[in-house]
């Protein structure tokens, strides 16, 4: 903590700039040489999904982390709480993604503390977009692509659950009903589209238990064809991470509950 340096800042800019000023965060990556093959390497090996249901937004992610064909870790947490009402789910290079989540979490807090008001939902959505944009040089070089989903709850909007997905350049898209990203996402998108359109009820009308079942089935299907998606580990009893963002904040679904619904309705 170097007091003098900090005091010279005067009225402060945003948190990432503060970190860059002190050399604690890499500068926005310049668009440099491409990787040898001259293409973006999509290392987003995972499956993340989110959809709106009757109470709010459910965000789910499998637990597998891979490096090429090797499974590195089978208990990764890719669904991260950023603040009381915001969840960021990550597909992509873990080092970059977790760092981004950390910067984002601190940015929102820093904004509230310095500006004495909560950052608006639009501001939060944009902040993530900016981080992705700053990272695009690395993504192009094939070393740091991140494609996240951002879910939050906006009391002023209707429906209050808000869901966004991004591309690697930082473009943000608001999803009406559902979003999925990562290598296993094509299958998941198919399932969610089917459920939403021809299921018994549209996704926004289903209960929490139903939502968990849909998410479990979708991740199980994704892992059927995509080796980079862990799905449900039946032997080691490793279940996906699921979080719900609703009016009263964020809730992590207990593993027992997921396991029980899995036994009854999925297995």
């Amino acid at each position, binding site marked *: *903590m*170097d*007091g*003098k340096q*900090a*005091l010279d*800042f*005067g*009225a*402060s800019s945003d*948190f990432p700039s*503060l*970190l860059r000023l*002190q050399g*604690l965060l890499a500068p926005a990556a310049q668009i440099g040489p491409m990787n040898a093959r001259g293409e973006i390497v999509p290392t987003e090996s995972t499956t993340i999904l989110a959809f709106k249901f009757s109470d709010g937004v459910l965000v789910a992610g499998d637990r597998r982390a891979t490096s090429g064909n090797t499974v590195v870790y089978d208990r990764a947490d890719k669904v991260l709480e950023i603040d*009381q009402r915001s969840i960021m789910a990550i597909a992509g290079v873990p080092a970059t993604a977790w760092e981004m989540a*950390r*910067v984002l979490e*601190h940015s929102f*807090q*820093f904004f*509230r*503390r*310095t500006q*004495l008001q909560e950052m608006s939902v639009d501001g939060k959505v944009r902040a993530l977009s900016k981080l992705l944009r700053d990272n695009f040089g690395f993504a192009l070089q094939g070393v740091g692509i991140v494609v996240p989903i951002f879910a939050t709850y906006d009391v002023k909007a209707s429906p209050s659950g808000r869901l966004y997905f991004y591309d690697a350049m930082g473009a943000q898209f608001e999803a009406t009903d559902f979003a999925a990203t990562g290598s296993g996402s094509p299958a998941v998108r198919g399932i969610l589209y089917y459920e939403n359109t021809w299921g018994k009820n549209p996704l926004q009308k289903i209960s929490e238990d139903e939502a968990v079942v849909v998410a479990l089935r979708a991740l199980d299907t994704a892992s059927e064809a995509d080796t980079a998606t862990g799905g449900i580990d039946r032997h080691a009893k490793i279940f996906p991470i699921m979080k719900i963002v609703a009016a009263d904040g964020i809730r992590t679904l207990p593993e027992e509950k997921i396991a029980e619904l899995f036994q009854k309705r999925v297995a």
Partner: protein
Amino acid sequence: MIEEPYRWVEAIATRRDYIEMQLATGSPVVALGYDEGILLLTVGQQKLFEIYDRIALGAIGHPGDIERLRMAAIELASTEGFTRSAADVSLRRLAYYSLSPVMKNAFEQIYGAPFLARLLFVEIGTSPAEDLFLEVEYDGAINLRSSDGGNRPFAVLAATKKSAKEMAEFLSKRFQSAKDLPATLDLALDAWTVGQLRTDEAMTGDDEIRRQRSERLGSGTISAAVLKRNTNRAVRYRAVEASDLAPLIAK
């Protein structure tokens, strides 16, 4: 140029008088332990702030200077919390290593402007014995108030030394541990009133305090915030709701 040492000492003394005069009309801040954590209360302009997960600030002084110091404290704590962890953010280090040297320097550089501010930082620990009340003066002096193992968990920030002393004496007599929030708000506002009295009497009676309290409160807005000890969230700071403050005005 001030080349002779005694001139410098003289200039510093003048500067001290000037700052004390500038601060003399400030509205006191009271920090008081209660059953769920620590309460901070003041009346008038906004001057209770969240610094980090477990740290809050109350201040007296020029809004511009308070703002600069507040920003510096938030920036220092946030960078520390980001690069290491929230557990590594320490009020003691923030005050001793970062704020105090800069404030002392500004105060003694007699061609530059000093900070017209007096700060009270509060850090909530896992138990009342670990709570910290730390005052930083405009000249960088630090007054670390021990909560005496949790037995005297309170501190005040007042415009003058005399009112600070009177408020502390009042609280020493009246403070009872583990009271609920309404009772603590009430006591804090009484202590604030004691800090506002310009009387030479040693201690005013209860009726007089009550009368003065409603008189001095006038149209001023009470602002209060708490640091909660046991909560499942990392951030302990909460502003006290207006509905909790309403009963105080009626009395």
